[in-house]
């Protein structure tokens, strides 16, 4: 109703491509895995609270990796934790996406030089889709990262692209 009401002369038909329909439904409801490591996790919680509100983009936290579409790796990843994150990533079902939030999971952050137990960037273990810089990034920066991810999902296709 509303936008589409009485716009067509024929009986109500909407024409689109299967790609567009699938991508639109996927990007409107990315469910995230409830996962926070360190200081960036608090900014992620502030982004989900009422001031900046993640829920209007369709993002709700789920406790189990098998029900989630996206992990936001927020905080420093240590060597001890890297092994466990790999296992969580393998448990998620396709299509799955990773947002790396903050300097520590992008490249090791302030601990790059003398951190003997810090993994210098989560992309040494799992493939990352969007990097959000900052230490910690503001909630608005995280929302921008999420919008970039939605752009990326919108451009996906079921057919293989010819190079």
């Amino acid at each position: 109703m509303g936008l589409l009401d009485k716009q067509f002369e024929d009986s109500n038909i909407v024409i689109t491509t299967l790609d567009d329909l699938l991508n639109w439904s996927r990007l409107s409801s990315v469910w995230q895995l409830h996962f926070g490591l360190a200081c960036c996790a608090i900014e992620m919680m502030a982004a989900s609270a009422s001031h900046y509100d993640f829920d209007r983009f369709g993002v709700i936290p789920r406790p189990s990796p098998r029900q989630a579409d996206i992990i936001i790796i927020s905080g420093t990843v240590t060597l001890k934790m890297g092994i466990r994150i790999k296992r969580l990533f393998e448990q998620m079902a396709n299509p799955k996406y990773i947002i790396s939030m903050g300097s520590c999971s992008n490249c090791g952050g302030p601990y790059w030089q003398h951190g003997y137990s810090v993994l210098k960037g989560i992309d040494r273990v799992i493939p990352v889709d969007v990097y959000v810089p900052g230490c910690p990034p503001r909630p608005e920066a995280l929302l921008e990262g999420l919008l970039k991810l939605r752009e990326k999902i919108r451009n996906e296709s079921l057919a293989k692209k010819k190079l």
Partner: protein
Amino acid sequence: MKTEEIFQNLKDKFGDSVIELNTSMIEPYILVNPLEVDKISLYLRDNELLQFNNLMVLSGVDDANGKKNADDIIEGGTLSVYYHLESTILNHIVVLKVSTPRENPEVASVEPIWKSSDWHEREAYDMFGIIFLNHPDLRRILMPYDWEGGYPLRKDYKSPEFYQGMKVNY
């Protein structure tokens, strides 16, 4: 009570185990024998004039007073442990220090006396390699349990290349 009076009290009771009182380092401390520190601690906790019922912090230190050999590894010298004790009843503070040789660092554990030293001693073992005798469960606490790379906070520590397939250095 001031540190000098506490030092006198301990010296009268324990004699040679209490080695010296050092007041030249901003905060005065009492140097004691590493293998007798549990008996001294029990006396410090239970005596009515002293009543030190709270262990604030226990820190391991690498004194780095040996010589570096050809491979850049320090030989000789000591590793030390500092104990900061406090009495919430009588309101005074005392600092104890023990020093052990680097090649064979052994200190008596004070875990039966103050339960808060349990994890502090595990951390000193994990970071420096100091063995605490009679500790109920001495194993690594902050590094992974199967870490083979050595003791990280020593001054001559070098990181291993890989750990379980992940590159450690930048």
